């Protein structure tokens, strides 16, 4: 199924028994079943006002198209959309609706927040075929409940996104990365010191024994802050590939299960050392990607109390759910919301457990 309009989508939803919602099919995780519903027919940028930093696009618009349009005005999506195709062994063209449904966010999260923080408005079709809008295209909006945040990262469980609005960002004129060879735990401790400084770090990652700190902004400012951090931490400027951090290319094409952990940053080094797995750390340790060659590590037990873990790429035969189990009171609220927005349980059945 590939609707070309919101109205057509609404009719399809009303008639459907089970739908596996897909954008470009580049980042779907979990085990959804049902007839495939592609949103790629709902496509095109509806509005772009560079002077107001605002972009509105239909959900099926390819991310690449949006990136190119923004680049023509020297702007971008601030939250750095991860491209996980190589990691997940997928092809296809990522859509902006899929990005929102996954709340997919890259290294700049430490400075500007996640996809959900840049998202200003949504339109979506709920499980009964109702078209619903929330938020809008302005930067500040507290009119009614914030269903925009609710939909961001909902993995399609509450509705099929049809349109999304973003606050975008001007591309800064200068960027510098400072690096140092640092083992754990020192590497992450240095990143936390940088993030705790007034020097406005826009990336703080640790990959293969190398700690990296990114600074962006006006040329003079970047040079000043780089000098300060060099003095503070002993790092040196060096070329760096932040897309490799964002896309976790270190684990692409390698056998094993891949986990994504959101943790209290100070817990990260100990967690990685205890599990004794290869790790890529981002967000100053707040985000950990783990490669488990055998799929035997009890990652969820290890992370209990300091964060949570999502199984991004399971090995065949692994039975752990993709999404972290929730405490009963939270699970009850989540189930209640799903029952309200998708009473027939037709969206991505089986995916979020």
């Amino acid at each position, binding site marked *: 199924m590939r609707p070309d309009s919101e109205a057509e989508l609404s009719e399809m939803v009303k008639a459907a028994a089970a739908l596996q919602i897909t954008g470009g099919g580049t980042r779907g995780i979990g085990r959804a079943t049902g007839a495939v519903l592609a949103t790629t027919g709902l496509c095109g940028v509806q509005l772009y*006002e*560079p*002077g*107001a*930093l605002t972009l509105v696009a239909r959900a099926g618009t390819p991310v690449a198209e949006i990136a190119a349009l923004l680049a023509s005005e*020297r702007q971008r999506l601030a939250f750095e959309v991860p491209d996980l195709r190589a990691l997940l062994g997928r092809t296809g063209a990522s859509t902006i609706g899929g990005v929102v449904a996954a*709340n997919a966010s890259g290294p700049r999260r430490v400075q500007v*927040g*996640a996809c*959900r*923080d840049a998202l200003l408005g949504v339109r979506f079709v709920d499980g009964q075929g109702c*078209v*619903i*809008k*929330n938020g*809008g*295209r*302005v*930067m*500040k*909006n*507290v*009119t*009614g*409940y*914030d*269903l925009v*945040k*609710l939909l*961001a*990262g909902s993995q399609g469980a509450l509705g099929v996104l049809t349109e999304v609005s973003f606050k975008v960002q*001007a*591309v*800064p004129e200068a960027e510098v990365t400072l690096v140092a060879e640092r083992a754990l735990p020192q590497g992450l401790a240095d990143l936390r010191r940088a*993030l*705790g400084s*007034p020097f406005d770090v826009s990336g703080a990652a640790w990959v293969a024994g190398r700690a990296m700190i990114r600074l962006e902004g*006006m040329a*003079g*400012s970047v040079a*000043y*802050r780089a000098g300060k951090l060099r003095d503070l931490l002993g790092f040196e400027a060096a070329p760096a590939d932040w897309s490799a951090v964002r896309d976790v290319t270190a684990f692409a094409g390698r056998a094993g299960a891949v986990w994504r952990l*959101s943790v*209290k*940053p*100070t817990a990260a080094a100990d967690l990685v050392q205890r599990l004794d797995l290869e790790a890529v750390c981002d*967000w100053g340790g*707040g985000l950990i990607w783990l490669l488990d060659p055998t799929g035997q590590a009890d990652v969820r037990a290890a992370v209990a109390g*300091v964060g*949570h873990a999502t199984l991004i790429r399971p090995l065949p035969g692994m039975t752990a759910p993709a999404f*972290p189990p*929730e*405490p009963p*009171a*939270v699970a009850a609220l*989540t189930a*209640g*919301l799903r029952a*309200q*927005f998708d009473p027939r349980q037709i969206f991505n059945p089986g995916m979020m457990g």
Partner: protein
Amino acid sequence: MDMPLPDAAIIARKSAITARLRSVLPADAVISDPAETRAYECDALTAYRCAPMAAVLPRTTEEVAAVLRICHQEGVPVVPRGAGTSLAGGSLPTADCVLIGVARMNAVLETDYDNRFIRVQSGRTNLSVTGAIESDGWFYAPDPSSQLACAIAGNIAMNSGGAHCLKYGVTTNNLLGVTLVQMDGTVVEIGGPWADAGGIDLLGVICGSEGQLGIVTEATLRILPKPEGARPVLVGFDSNEVAGTCVSDIIKAGILPVAIEFMDRPCIRATEAFAKAGYPDCEALLIIEVEGAPQEIAEQLARIKAIALQHNPVEFREAADEDQAKRIWLGRKSAFGAMGQINDYMCLDGTIPVSALPYVLRRIGEMSAACGLDVGNVFHAGDGNMHPLILFNANKPGDLERCEAFGADILKLCVEVGGCLTGEHGVGIEKRDLMSVQFNPADLEAQLRVKDVFDPGWLLNPAKVFPLEATASRRGAGASPHTPRIFAQRG
């Protein structure tokens, strides 16, 4: 402004209900004497007043849960209150409600610079969150102008913003976790000191839900290292349109000031007469503040100056020192007080796309002339969040009604140009009946369904946010769409 008729059956059981509340709270935490409950009869929207049946002032999450369990069992509506600074009537009581004030819950529970968060009880005031960490070089970014008084609980309920959110975001962008007590007394922990709360974003929908989904008793907040310095400039223009274009050009150039404030001529004149800040007498002025080390500030201001000069400003004033910087901010910070010297005023809070600024200001001027009420505009221009201040005389019969009607027309205009009714104050009772201007019935129904999940009995702050007729079938038996006004008396 109508409110539901209080439920006489509940009021008849007042002494039994307050006795139960006293059984779970210390004696000084339950207030039921009408002479004392009057202290809670309104928030900062003082035109509307109604004392609660009882007010309770718990000190812990457990006490909040115990009170809510009782109210749930008794079917009593509950109105949560932070510091009572809402401009939208978010904590206006009803005569049959128990008001839960969190003001005594003001402790700092944990400060963790290494993980960049602070955990506080929700009754702590916004400014005292920063107060607890600033000597170590840290701050909490959202800065509503009531920050000296307003509580974090209310900030979370209203998703409060402030002058500096252009760079740092509003409350929802700085909230990592909450302890939420549901209406039935269930205590839920959502999120924590990690970046993503996980699962469906409950935290995102709780923030800004105006106390209708639960009572937040503790919050984990993101904190930031203080910038090395900050400095404002003042730029005056002879046209609103040119000032608006200048704002847009600055933003487009990739400069990210922490604040861009805008004042129009009526507001400049009122402010000047009141505060004597030495502002130029011009059509529009901008106050633009940047942050960083001295050389970073100089670099940004040079860029801003270059852009501003292309638009032939009547004035470009830099601050050579701290004293001059203070003078630049003086008028802006006195603006509300200055307008209040002239008359009573109503402060609106609509947001518009920045590109619609000149058109909206022109229309507001025309509408002001047509209805005979003066209006001054002072607002956060970088994000389009307007604060028109409509002047009226509360002692003149009919003036409040005229002012409210004018205000409603301005908010409708905001929606018409692609904006919204409220950017940072919240809906409360003030904009409740305008919600259907912005949302169609399906959009509203989707929001009501969220409340159905958290509070199926519709007991928490039930007569707020949504038009009464849209919620009548959900609220208790006392609800009626055609109900008398409680009060419209200014004090």
